[in-house]
């Protein structure tokens, strides 16, 4: 018998897990709330550390999902746990009886408007990392007009308890360095500054990217969080920060300021979690089953988690997480699920 597996979220994690499980011979149903697949990846232009086009990666992921039953513009209306399976009613009227469910609901970008001191939505030339990617992708943005001085503000909605975001979003440092290089390529005469607290360039090749930004592109890295931004009458921006290496306050005029919005738990993912009364940790992301080796299992039997639903992840980490979830789901459906008589005991022992 082919088991039904429902995957919630058509971003990189959902697509990759779908492809893997489809290959294993399961009956995969993938739902996505938007009209297009890909999540944030569909809105991005190029990816760190090598600058590969996001389109290429996404079309590869979508290509792999051939045979998967796909419903876009579809959300979950109701979901309840039967003895072993999940009965899921979708907003398109279809009901699915699913033996395993994978939540790959991803993340939302931090709403930069909340950091009023940076003036996003108030000053014309303050944009976000997502706006800059859209500019690279579409080639136009009236706020970006041959800037001579460009500043990047790290940790907007990350490591900031005032805005309710204690954790590090993990990907913004590398994204800022990548984007700093890209704006320098677009505007070679511009001076580019990155204002950071710590540079967290942990991944393979990330440090090379940082060195390249300094050495070949002359990007200036200043340790200190931008404290406030104000606008001159000509639309340019005055920023204030402390250079904490020099232990001195500084001010500088910028033509463009890019806020590195961090990752926040997905609001629509949380709505699905609420239907199942899933445990959410203090940081707002879903809790995995206790223990460092629990991986992609949620506290509920047959319910799995992958990607940024369990906290900020880079794209390669998300894909690895999705593949791991596929293996975990396969193990569950072959070892625990079929044994009807001992199901409860097996769940207790092996879940």
């Amino acid at each position: 018998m082919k088991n039904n597996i429902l995957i919630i979220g058509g971003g990189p994690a959902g697509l990759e897990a779908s492809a893997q499980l489809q290959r294993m011979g399961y009956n995969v149903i993938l739902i996505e709330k938007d009209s297009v697949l890909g999540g944030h990846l569909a809105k991005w232009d190029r990816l760190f550390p090598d600058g590969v086009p996001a389109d290429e990666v996404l079309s590869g992921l979508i290509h792999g999902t051939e045979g998967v039953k796909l419903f876009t513009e579809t959300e979950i209306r109701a979901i309840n746990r039967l003895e072993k399976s999940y009965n899921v009613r979708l907003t398109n009227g279809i009901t699915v009886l699913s033996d395993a469910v994978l939540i790959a609901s991803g993340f939302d970008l931090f709403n930069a408007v909340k950091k009023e001191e940076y003036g996003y939505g108030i000053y014309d030339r303050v944009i976000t990392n997502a706006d800059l990617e859209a500019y690279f992708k579409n080639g136009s943005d009236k706020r970006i007009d041959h800037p001579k001085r460009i500043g990047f503000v790290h940790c907007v909605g990350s490591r900031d308890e005032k805005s309710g975001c204690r954790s590090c979003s993990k990907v913004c440092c590398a994204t800022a360095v990548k984007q700093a290089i890209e704006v320098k390529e677009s505007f070679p005469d511009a001076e580019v500054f990155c204002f950071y607290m710590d540079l967290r360039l942990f991944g393979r090749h990330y440090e090379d990217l940082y060195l390249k930004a300094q050495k070949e592109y002359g990007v200036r890295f200043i340790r200190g969080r931008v404290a406030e931004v104000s606008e001159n009458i000509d639309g340019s921006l005055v920023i204030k920060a402390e250079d904490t290496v020099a232990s001195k306050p500084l001010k500088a005029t910028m033509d463009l300021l890019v806020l590195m919005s961090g990752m926040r738990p997905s609001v629509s993912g949380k709505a699905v979690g609420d239907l199942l009364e899933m445990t959410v940790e203090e940081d707002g992301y879903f809790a995995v089953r206790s223990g460092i080796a629990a991986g992609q299992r949620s506290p509920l039997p047959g319910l799995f988690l992958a990607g940024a639903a369990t906290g900020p992840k880079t794209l390669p980490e998300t894909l690895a997480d999705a593949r791991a979830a596929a293996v975990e789901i396969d193990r569950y459906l072959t070892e625990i699920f079929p044994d009807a008589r001992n199901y409860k005991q097996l769940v207790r022992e092996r879940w």
Partner: protein
Amino acid sequence: MVDFGFGLVPSSRMNLDLFDKEKYEELAEIEPDVRICMACGSCTAVCTAGKYTRTSLREAIEDIKNAKPEKALEMLRACQLCGKCSMVCPRGINTRHLILSITKVYSAK
């Protein structure tokens, strides 16, 4: 002049708008390694002159980038070019050549 019992000190704030881009590019032309310092402070920690005087290559590089070249020159005045800093720099900067280049470029009127 009435003595109010206090005086005013000049602002310590740095203004990056005063940064001399041409001069910096001139320096980077002869010693490109000025760009790759990551302000770890290893050079300052081992500096023999720094033990007794205000000498710090890390601070000098910062001063240049923060539009205070006269402070940078002051910071390197007591350097004896012993080269200990070049042995510890994690980025492999040719520190002696950098110090000489800073002095050359920024001392010129």
